[in-house]
Protein backbone atom coordinates (compact mmCIF):
# COMPACT_ATOMS: atom_id res chain seq x y z
CA UNK A 1 0.00 0.00 0.00
CA UNK A 2 1.35 3.40 -0.91
CA UNK A 3 0.06 6.70 0.39
CA UNK A 4 0.55 10.06 -1.31
CA UNK A 5 4.21 10.94 -1.82
CA UNK A 6 5.38 13.37 0.83
CA UNK A 7 8.49 15.26 1.86
CA UNK A 8 9.32 16.50 5.30
CA UNK A 9 10.42 20.13 5.18
CA UNK A 10 11.53 21.72 8.46
CA UNK A 11 9.56 19.14 10.35
CA UNK A 12 6.35 19.57 8.35
CA UNK A 13 4.91 17.02 5.94
CA UNK A 14 4.43 18.38 2.45
CA UNK A 15 3.03 16.74 -0.69
CA UNK A 16 5.69 15.94 -3.26
CA UNK A 17 5.01 16.98 -6.85
CA UNK A 18 6.70 14.40 -9.08
CA UNK A 19 9.91 15.79 -10.56
CA UNK A 20 10.25 18.59 -8.00
CA UNK A 21 13.87 19.69 -7.67
CA UNK A 22 15.57 21.26 -4.68
CA UNK A 23 15.97 24.72 -6.31
CA UNK A 24 12.30 24.57 -7.36
CA UNK A 25 11.27 23.79 -3.78
CA UNK A 26 13.15 26.87 -2.53
CA UNK A 27 11.44 28.98 -5.20
CA UNK A 28 8.04 27.56 -4.27
CA UNK A 29 8.71 28.50 -0.65
CA UNK A 30 9.85 31.99 -1.67
CA UNK A 31 13.21 31.52 0.04
CA UNK A 32 16.28 33.53 -1.00
CA UNK A 33 18.85 30.76 -1.43
CA UNK A 34 21.80 33.03 -0.66
CA UNK A 35 20.60 33.39 2.93
CA UNK A 36 20.12 29.76 3.88
CA UNK A 37 21.72 26.35 4.18
CA UNK A 38 19.95 23.16 3.19
CA UNK A 39 20.13 19.52 4.21
CA UNK A 40 18.51 16.76 2.20
CA UNK A 41 18.74 13.72 4.42
CA UNK A 42 22.49 13.56 5.18
CA UNK A 43 23.66 15.82 2.35
CA UNK A 44 24.42 19.44 3.17
CA UNK A 45 24.46 22.37 0.76
CA UNK A 46 25.01 26.13 0.94
CA UNK A 47 21.77 27.65 -0.30
CA UNK A 48 23.54 29.48 -3.08
CA UNK A 49 24.90 26.22 -4.44
CA UNK A 50 22.05 23.74 -4.12
CA UNK A 51 22.24 21.13 -6.88
CA UNK A 52 19.51 20.38 -9.43
CA UNK A 53 18.57 17.41 -7.33
CA UNK A 54 15.22 15.73 -7.87
CA UNK A 55 13.50 15.18 -4.58
CA UNK A 56 12.11 11.81 -3.64
CA UNK A 57 9.29 10.63 -1.45
CA UNK A 58 10.40 10.42 2.14
CA UNK A 59 13.25 12.95 1.81
CA UNK A 60 13.85 14.88 5.00
CA UNK A 61 14.78 18.48 4.25
CA UNK A 62 16.02 21.19 6.57
CA UNK A 63 16.30 24.80 5.49
CA UNK A 64 18.06 26.97 8.04
CA UNK A 65 19.37 30.48 8.46
CA UNK A 66 21.81 32.24 10.74
CA UNK A 67 20.37 34.28 13.59
CA UNK A 68 21.67 35.98 16.70
CA UNK A 69 22.64 33.67 19.53
CA UNK A 70 25.19 32.95 22.23
Amino acid sequence: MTGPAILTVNGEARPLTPGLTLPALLRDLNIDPARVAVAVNDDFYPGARVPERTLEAGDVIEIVRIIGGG
Partner: protein
Amino acid sequence: MQQNPHTPDPFTLGGRTFTSRLMTGTGKFTDFGVMREALAASGSQIVTVAIRRVELRAPGHDGLLDALDWDALQLLPNTAGCRTADEALRVARLARVATGVNWIKLEVIPDARYLLPDPVGTLRAAEALAEDGFTVLPYVQADAVLARALEDAGCAAVMPLASPIGSGRGLRSPELLRTVLDGARVPIVVDAGLGVPSDAAQALELGADAVLVNTAIAEARDPVGMAHAFALGVQAGRAAFLAGRMPERAHASPSSPTGGVVRLPDPEVPV
Protein backbone atom coordinates in the same frame (compact mmCIF):
# COMPACT_ATOMS: atom_id res chain seq x y z
CA MET B 1 58.41 38.50 34.09
CA GLN B 2 57.23 42.08 33.89
CA GLN B 3 54.27 42.56 31.61
CA ASN B 4 53.04 45.92 30.46
CA PRO B 5 49.24 45.68 30.53
CA HIS B 6 49.17 47.33 27.13
CA THR B 7 51.50 44.79 25.55
CA PRO B 8 49.57 42.59 23.15
CA ASP B 9 49.14 39.26 24.83
CA PRO B 10 47.68 37.10 22.10
CA PHE B 11 46.39 33.58 22.38
CA THR B 12 45.97 30.96 19.73
CA LEU B 13 42.76 29.06 19.12
CA GLY B 14 42.01 26.77 16.23
CA GLY B 15 45.25 27.81 14.51
CA ARG B 16 44.37 31.52 14.60
CA THR B 17 45.83 34.18 16.85
CA PHE B 18 43.58 36.60 18.74
CA THR B 19 44.42 39.65 20.83
CA SER B 20 40.98 39.98 22.45
CA ARG B 21 40.12 37.49 25.16
CA LEU B 22 36.47 38.52 25.20
CA MET B 23 34.14 36.62 22.91
CA THR B 24 30.64 37.97 22.46
CA GLY B 25 27.31 36.41 21.59
CA THR B 26 24.84 38.05 19.22
CA GLY B 27 21.59 36.96 20.90
CA LYS B 28 19.01 39.07 22.75
CA PHE B 29 20.04 42.48 21.42
CA THR B 30 17.13 44.83 20.87
CA ASP B 31 18.39 45.81 17.43
CA PHE B 32 21.33 45.20 15.15
CA GLY B 33 22.62 48.76 15.44
CA VAL B 34 23.10 48.34 19.19
CA MET B 35 24.59 44.89 18.63
CA ARG B 36 27.09 46.18 16.13
CA GLU B 37 28.14 49.05 18.41
CA ALA B 38 28.40 46.70 21.38
CA LEU B 39 30.57 44.26 19.43
CA ALA B 40 32.84 47.12 18.44
CA ALA B 41 33.04 48.37 22.05
CA SER B 42 33.82 44.86 23.28
CA GLY B 43 36.79 44.53 20.92
CA SER B 44 35.70 40.94 20.39
CA GLN B 45 37.25 39.06 17.51
CA ILE B 46 35.16 35.92 17.93
CA VAL B 47 31.36 36.16 17.87
CA THR B 48 28.76 33.44 18.17
CA VAL B 49 25.66 32.99 16.06
CA ALA B 50 22.84 30.45 16.11
CA ILE B 51 21.22 28.30 13.42
CA ARG B 52 17.44 28.08 13.14
CA ARG B 53 14.86 26.77 10.71
CA VAL B 54 13.56 29.25 8.17
CA GLU B 55 9.91 30.08 8.83
CA LEU B 56 8.22 28.52 5.83
CA ARG B 57 5.23 30.83 6.04
CA ALA B 58 7.23 34.00 6.41
CA PRO B 59 10.69 33.48 4.96
CA GLY B 60 12.97 36.44 4.91
CA HIS B 61 16.04 37.27 6.83
CA ASP B 62 16.56 39.20 10.00
CA GLY B 63 19.58 41.20 8.91
CA LEU B 64 22.19 39.66 11.20
CA LEU B 65 24.48 38.76 8.34
CA ASP B 66 24.53 42.34 7.11
CA ALA B 67 25.23 43.67 10.60
CA LEU B 68 28.43 41.67 11.06
CA ASP B 69 31.81 42.47 9.58
CA TRP B 70 32.62 38.98 8.34
CA ASP B 71 36.17 39.84 7.35
CA ALA B 72 37.17 41.16 10.75
CA LEU B 73 35.39 38.59 12.92
CA GLN B 74 35.77 34.88 13.44
CA LEU B 75 32.23 33.52 13.34
CA LEU B 76 31.50 30.82 15.85
CA PRO B 77 28.16 29.15 15.08
CA ASN B 78 26.62 27.25 17.96
CA THR B 79 24.39 24.21 18.28
CA ALA B 80 22.19 25.87 20.88
CA GLY B 81 18.83 24.18 21.23
CA CYS B 82 20.15 20.71 20.35
CA ARG B 83 19.11 18.06 22.85
CA THR B 84 21.15 15.14 21.56
CA ALA B 85 24.51 14.47 19.92
CA ASP B 86 22.78 13.59 16.65
CA GLU B 87 20.87 16.87 16.56
CA ALA B 88 24.11 18.74 17.26
CA LEU B 89 25.93 16.92 14.46
CA ARG B 90 23.21 17.89 12.00
CA VAL B 91 23.17 21.53 13.09
CA ALA B 92 26.98 21.70 13.01
CA ARG B 93 27.02 20.48 9.43
CA LEU B 94 24.28 22.92 8.46
CA ALA B 95 26.23 25.70 10.18
CA ARG B 96 29.34 24.81 8.22
CA VAL B 97 27.62 25.15 4.87
CA ALA B 98 25.63 28.19 6.02
CA THR B 99 28.71 30.15 7.13
CA GLY B 100 31.59 28.55 5.26
CA VAL B 101 33.27 28.29 8.66
CA ASN B 102 34.25 24.99 10.25
CA TRP B 103 34.24 26.31 13.81
CA ILE B 104 31.43 25.09 16.05
CA LYS B 105 30.47 25.86 19.62
CA LEU B 106 29.10 22.51 20.58
CA GLU B 107 26.10 22.51 22.89
CA VAL B 108 24.19 19.33 23.72
CA ILE B 109 21.60 20.35 26.27
CA PRO B 110 18.75 18.00 27.16
CA ASP B 111 17.65 20.02 30.18
CA ALA B 112 15.59 23.14 29.51
CA ARG B 113 15.33 24.23 33.13
CA TYR B 114 18.99 24.78 33.96
CA LEU B 115 20.35 24.44 30.41
CA LEU B 116 23.01 22.11 31.72
CA PRO B 117 25.02 20.23 29.10
CA ASP B 118 25.03 16.46 28.61
CA PRO B 119 28.66 15.39 29.09
CA VAL B 120 28.30 12.00 27.40
CA GLY B 121 26.47 13.34 24.34
CA THR B 122 28.86 16.28 24.11
CA LEU B 123 31.92 14.03 24.11
CA ARG B 124 30.39 11.73 21.52
CA ALA B 125 29.48 14.64 19.24
CA ALA B 126 32.89 16.28 19.78
CA GLU B 127 34.68 13.10 18.67
CA ALA B 128 32.58 12.89 15.50
CA LEU B 129 32.95 16.58 14.65
CA ALA B 130 36.72 16.68 15.26
CA GLU B 131 37.02 13.60 13.05
CA ASP B 132 34.99 15.45 10.42
CA GLY B 133 37.42 18.39 10.39
CA PHE B 134 35.59 20.82 12.64
CA THR B 135 37.27 23.19 15.07
CA VAL B 136 35.24 22.15 18.10
CA LEU B 137 34.62 24.28 21.19
CA PRO B 138 32.44 22.22 23.53
CA TYR B 139 30.27 23.80 26.22
CA VAL B 140 30.51 21.73 29.40
CA GLN B 141 30.36 21.75 33.15
CA ALA B 142 33.67 22.55 34.85
CA ASP B 143 34.76 18.89 34.98
CA ALA B 144 38.50 18.26 34.63
CA VAL B 145 38.16 14.62 33.63
CA LEU B 146 35.71 15.52 30.88
CA ALA B 147 37.90 18.44 29.78
CA ARG B 148 40.90 16.12 29.32
CA ALA B 149 38.76 13.65 27.37
CA LEU B 150 37.58 16.47 25.09
CA GLU B 151 41.19 17.53 24.53
CA ASP B 152 42.05 13.94 23.63
CA ALA B 153 39.11 13.94 21.21
CA GLY B 154 40.75 16.82 19.34
CA CYS B 155 38.75 19.80 20.60
CA ALA B 156 40.34 23.18 19.96
CA ALA B 157 39.21 24.60 23.30
CA VAL B 158 37.01 23.68 26.24
CA MET B 159 34.26 25.99 27.44
CA PRO B 160 33.31 25.35 31.08
CA LEU B 161 30.27 27.21 32.34
CA ALA B 162 30.42 29.75 35.15
CA SER B 163 26.75 29.37 36.07
CA PRO B 164 23.60 28.54 34.10
CA ILE B 165 23.22 30.26 30.71
CA GLY B 166 21.65 33.67 31.01
CA SER B 167 21.58 33.57 34.81
CA GLY B 168 24.17 36.30 35.39
CA ARG B 169 25.21 34.64 38.64
CA GLY B 170 28.94 34.65 37.99
CA LEU B 171 31.56 32.03 38.68
CA ARG B 172 29.87 29.66 41.13
CA SER B 173 32.48 26.88 41.12
CA PRO B 174 35.90 28.51 41.02
CA GLU B 175 37.51 25.47 42.65
CA LEU B 176 36.23 23.21 39.91
CA LEU B 177 37.40 25.70 37.29
CA ARG B 178 40.87 25.56 38.84
CA THR B 179 40.97 21.81 38.27
CA VAL B 180 40.01 22.32 34.61
CA LEU B 181 42.71 24.97 34.18
CA ASP B 182 45.41 22.91 35.91
CA GLY B 183 47.22 21.08 33.15
CA ALA B 184 44.91 22.15 30.32
CA ARG B 185 46.47 21.65 26.90
CA VAL B 186 43.96 23.77 24.97
CA PRO B 187 42.54 27.23 25.67
CA ILE B 188 39.89 27.27 28.40
CA VAL B 189 37.08 29.72 27.68
CA VAL B 190 34.64 30.35 30.51
CA ASP B 191 31.18 30.56 29.01
CA ALA B 192 27.74 31.27 30.39
CA GLY B 193 26.50 32.95 33.51
CA LEU B 194 28.96 35.83 33.76
CA GLY B 195 26.93 38.81 34.95
CA VAL B 196 29.36 41.69 35.46
CA PRO B 197 32.92 42.53 34.40
CA SER B 198 34.31 41.45 37.78
CA ASP B 199 33.03 37.92 37.00
CA ALA B 200 35.05 37.97 33.80
CA ALA B 201 38.06 39.40 35.60
CA GLN B 202 37.84 36.60 38.16
CA ALA B 203 37.86 33.94 35.45
CA LEU B 204 40.90 35.48 33.80
CA GLU B 205 42.65 35.96 37.16
CA LEU B 206 42.30 32.25 37.79
CA GLY B 207 43.99 31.55 34.47
CA ALA B 208 41.17 31.12 31.99
CA ASP B 209 42.34 32.06 28.51
CA ALA B 210 39.15 33.90 27.53
CA VAL B 211 35.46 34.32 28.32
CA LEU B 212 32.30 34.37 26.26
CA VAL B 213 29.59 36.85 27.24
CA ASN B 214 26.18 37.45 25.69
CA THR B 215 23.26 38.16 28.03
CA ALA B 216 25.20 40.37 30.44
CA ILE B 217 25.97 42.74 27.59
CA ALA B 218 22.73 42.45 25.63
CA GLU B 219 20.51 42.90 28.69
CA ALA B 220 22.50 45.72 30.30
CA ARG B 221 20.72 49.07 30.40
CA ASP B 222 23.51 50.34 28.13
CA PRO B 223 24.83 47.35 26.14
CA VAL B 224 27.58 49.38 24.47
CA GLY B 225 28.84 50.71 27.80
CA MET B 226 28.71 47.22 29.32
CA ALA B 227 30.59 45.74 26.38
CA HIS B 228 33.36 48.24 26.99
CA ALA B 229 33.30 47.46 30.72
CA PHE B 230 33.65 43.73 30.03
CA ALA B 231 36.61 44.43 27.76
CA LEU B 232 38.26 46.27 30.67
CA GLY B 233 37.39 43.48 33.10
CA VAL B 234 38.97 40.91 30.85
CA GLN B 235 42.10 43.02 30.41
CA ALA B 236 42.37 43.57 34.17
CA GLY B 237 41.92 39.89 34.90
CA ARG B 238 44.49 38.81 32.37
CA ALA B 239 47.01 41.40 33.51
CA ALA B 240 46.49 40.27 37.11
CA PHE B 241 47.00 36.63 36.16
CA LEU B 242 50.27 37.49 34.43
CA ALA B 243 51.38 39.64 37.37
CA GLY B 244 50.75 36.79 39.83
CA ARG B 245 48.51 37.32 42.81
CA MET B 246 49.71 37.56 46.42
CA PRO B 247 49.34 34.53 48.65
CA GLU B 248 46.19 34.39 50.74
CA ARG B 249 46.68 34.40 54.50
CA ALA B 250 44.43 33.52 57.38
CA HIS B 251 45.61 36.46 59.53
CA ALA B 252 46.44 40.11 59.01
CA SER B 253 49.85 41.27 57.87
CA PRO B 254 50.63 44.97 58.50
CA SER B 255 51.32 46.99 55.41
CA SER B 256 53.30 49.65 57.34
CA PRO B 257 56.56 48.91 59.18
CA THR B 258 56.00 47.69 62.74
CA GLY B 259 59.11 49.46 64.14
CA GLY B 260 59.40 53.14 65.09
CA VAL B 261 55.76 53.69 65.88
CA VAL B 262 55.06 56.80 68.03
CA ARG B 263 54.05 55.54 71.47
CA LEU B 264 52.45 56.89 74.59
CA PRO B 265 52.96 54.94 77.78
CA ASP B 266 51.29 51.56 77.47
CA PRO B 267 47.67 51.71 78.51
CA GLU B 268 46.87 49.97 81.73
CA VAL B 269 45.72 46.54 80.89
CA PRO B 270 43.06 45.17 83.23
CA VAL B 271 44.22 41.96 84.85
